[in-house]
């Protein structure tokens, strides 16, 4: 009797219930057995750890999740609720710059009863959304509700250096929620991806909105992820009346001035410092640097957000007071090769117990350098165009103590300038220079008046000794890493 009553009440809410069941079937818990690289001991395979996250069916045979959920994966398994089987998954595309990834599961059984989620638009402020996922490692699905609080441009903490559109909601997003869908009216309106790391706010979660998801899907539709493009341009607002007058501009609150165009920028040779940008893709640029796009005032960089490699952006500019048009074709911008994240295998060269590594974000994190020269090279590599002299800054990060290097400690944290008089631009050149058959290796470092001198015969004699003493499994890795 009691039973039938339950059935009736269930019937009354049948449509919502059916939807719930469908949602459950199209969600997966992702388990990642990962191996984190150790930038201080780069020849080691790294400690084995792991974590879990959430994935959702974005197509009839593809799952979407966050890049950080599947980074450094050695084995990925996925599980669905109500199915005891663990399925093996592989990463098809991974986009570290927008923290999204697409997974394949070969086993056809996994996809039975799976329905891809429809993808919606950007939810309105103050509307309610539901976050689906497996937070804090639980086996059962968890659903939390939140209100859309804010939509803005924000740093994505996976890569640290990329900013995209981001939606803040007042539901907590915990580890394990990552990669899960945020739904409204049965459609995905975002991918849960990060919480708030400070201690001033509570109950704040962030999701990747669908323009970013669609951007990723379109980018990979040709079978390859090209990454976000970037204008690599610095501009300055033109709000000061004298500044406007001096540049011959009318008092119409339009235009920003270009302050820097690095030689690695896609805009190089198209735009110059001093150019006044009036329009981008025929849309007016306001004097505070904002443009009106789809009813919203957004920053100039967001125009590039909607573009892909090979796309063109059009500028209306004033150069020396004369109106001109410029077209810029997007390529992959430079800074990506400079600033990596922990998903990149460490590159290094070891010689005579001296460990040389390229300077990037991972290295900074691993060594916590305080040396002002190293900090300068890291911080200003792009804006001071330090890349003109070198493709990467190479740091002598460590010395494995041995008689051959016992008097060389003053070179620690030095930045390599040249070997035997030849300027060194990258790790490959350094490795090649070490292969030279010269009697002496003379290594000069930036700003150090004393060279590091190694006698070739001593280096050869020390090689096996150091290898054994410190269990150095491989003396160089210059090939792997970010392309």
């Amino acid at each position: 009797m009691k039973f039938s009553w339950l059935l009736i009440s269930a019937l009354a809410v049948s449509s919502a219930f059916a939807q719930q069941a469908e949602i459950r079937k199209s969600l997966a818990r992702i388990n990642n057995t990962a191996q984190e690289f150790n930038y201080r001991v780069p020849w080691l395979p790294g400690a084995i750890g792991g974590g879990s996250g959430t994935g959702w069916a974005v197509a009839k045979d593809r799952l979407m999740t966050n890049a950080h959920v599947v980074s450094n994966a050695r084995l990925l398994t996925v599980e669905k609720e109500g199915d005891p089987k663990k399925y093996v998954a592989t990463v098809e595309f991974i986009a570290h710059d927008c923290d999204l990834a697409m997974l394949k599961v070969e086993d056809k059984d996994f996809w039975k009863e799976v329905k891809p989620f429809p993808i919606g638009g950007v939810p309105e402020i103050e509307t309610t959304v539901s976050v689906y996922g497996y937070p804090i490692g639980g086996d059962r699905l968890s659903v939390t509700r939140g209100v859309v609080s804010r939509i803005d441009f924000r740093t994505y903490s996976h890569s640290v250096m990329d900013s995209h559109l981001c939606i803040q909601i007042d539901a907590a997003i915990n580890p394990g929620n990552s990669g899960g869908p945020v739904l409204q009216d049965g459609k995905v309106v975002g991918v849960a991806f990060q919480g708030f790391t400070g201690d001033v706010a509570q109950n704040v979660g962030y999701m990747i909105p669908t323009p970013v998801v669609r951007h990723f899907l379109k980018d990979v539709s040709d079978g390859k992820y090209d990454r976000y493009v970037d204008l690599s341009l610095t501009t300055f607002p033109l709000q000061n009346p004298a500044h406007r007058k001096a540049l011959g501009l009318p008092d119409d609150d339009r235009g920003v001035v270009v302050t820097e165009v690095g030689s690695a920028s896609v805009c190089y040779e198209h735009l110059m410092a001093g150019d006044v940008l009036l329009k981008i893709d025929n849309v007016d640029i306001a004097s505070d640097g904002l443009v009106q796009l789809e009813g919203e005032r957004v920053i100039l960089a967001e125009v590039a957000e909607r573009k892909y490699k090979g796309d063109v952006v059009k500028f209306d500019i004033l150069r020396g007071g004369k109106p001109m048009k410029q077209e810029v074709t997007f390529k992959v911008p430079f800074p990506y090769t400079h600033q990596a994240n922990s998903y990149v295998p460490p590159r290094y060269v070891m010689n005579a117990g001296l460990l040389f590594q390229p300077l990037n974000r991972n290295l900074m994190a691993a060594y916590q350098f305080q040396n002002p020269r190293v900090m300068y090279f890291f911080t200003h590599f792009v804006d001071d165009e330090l890349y003109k002299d070198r493709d990467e800054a190479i740091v002598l990060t460590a010395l494995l103590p041995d008689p051959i290097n016992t008097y060389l400690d003053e070179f620690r944290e030095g930045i390599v300038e040249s070997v035997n008089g030849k300027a060194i631009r990258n790790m490959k050149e350094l490795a090649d220079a070490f292969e030279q058959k010269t009697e002496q290796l003379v290594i000069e470092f930036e700003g150090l008046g004393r060279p590091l001198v190694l006698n070739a015969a001593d280096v050869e004699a020390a090689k096996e000794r150091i290898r054994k003493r410190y269990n150095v499994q491989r003396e160089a890795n210059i090939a792997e890493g970010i392309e």
Partner: protein
Amino acid sequence: MKRNIFFAIAALATLSLHAEEKLSVVRVNITSQPWDFLRPWGKKQPTTKRAIGAVLEGGKVLVTGDLAGNAAFVEFEAAEGGRKVPATVEFVDYEANLALLKTDDAEFMKGIPQLAVAESSLGDVLTVWQLESNGRLLKTDGPLTTAENFAYPVDGAFLIYRMTVQLQGRDSSFTLPVVHDGKLTGVLMAYDNASNNANLVPAPLIQHFLKDAADGKYDGFPRAGYGMSAMRDPALRRYAKVPAEVTGGVFINNIAKDGPAAKAGMKKGDVLVGIDDLAVDQDGNFPHPKYGKIPAGHIFSTMHFVGDTVKLHILREGVAQTLDATLARRAPSDYVIDPYIMDKAPRFYVLGGLVLQEVSRQMLREFGADWLRRAPERAVYMDRYQNELFEDGPKKIVFLTRVLPTPATVGYEEVTSIRVTKINGVELQSLTDVPAALEKPMNGFHKVEFDEDPKTIYLDAAQVTAVEQQVQQQYRLPTLKRLE
């Protein structure tokens, strides 16, 4: 000595009731008021410190330079009785951390015995003098354990004496005389409660300071102007072609432009093996008869005076040569970024609301003990590497330190902590170039250029003049510029 005896007799005659000897010290009360390098139009709050000064020959009183820095008011207080008289700083050396004070009140100094200055040897038991509040002398003994080169508070390294001594807390703890055998052998400049270690400015520096000041013109401690690396590395010795029979020597890795070593013809890559008749070892030390091995820098700075000529024995490509170097001092103002600025007001120029200043380490230190991390990172970098970055100028780095919002600076509020390179096309060698550059506005505008984002901004020249009075009143600035 004779005078001492004379005074002692006189004291006995007049104060026969006192069996105790008259003390060779006075209390020194110094109120210092440094300039505020982040608000360069004003001075900071005055602070008063007390110390015990050693009375030296001629009735002059010796304390640390640290204490005398930015002195606004100095007074002497009798050790007993508390009588006070105004005094002045006669000579101060902030690098060597010494200051000589005097009073015009001859009556006050009368009868105070004067201390001679003498070096001590390692192991000697030294006595630190403190005063009880009733004027009684408190003597605490401790051994001189170490004589070594050590970083001084303001800039550079000099010899210190280090002694172990268990001092009692007393109100006059800044600067204490340290005595051996009845002679002043050091001035206590730092004391660590936990380890009971005291660092002293040692007699050799005091003697140098006094001798230099004796002619009424103070020149300071000279330097040779080179940097060196230790040369224990056999590969480096071979590279520099040092003959096997030569055991010592250091690798010269840096030569200060226009410094004594540069003028003597010393070059990067030379191997310095001796100075005058003293051999320099692989670590850059020489054997001092009293203190053992200490860095060769001591020879230039403390064993010699500005203007002395020393012989630098070097090996260049393995061949022995001797260079004659005439020693000189590099004053802080001779640096692009002054390592310190004491007793002087910072230069500044308020241009329509843009506050322009010259970068100095004094300014960077305003960011606190961890200024290396908290001060504008570009400025810290420029300071650290100034010798390599600015070999060909400019003389000083002009910095936009802040923007006071005014009608002329609307939209520029966020521009801060960047280097100004040009105004109206004129390259700035220092802040004093600013007024002349402003005399030639371009089409009625002042064009201000920076070496980084936003590169160029403009101010309306007429508006800058028009808002001057308003800026001054609104922000209560005593003046809009100070160029000297």
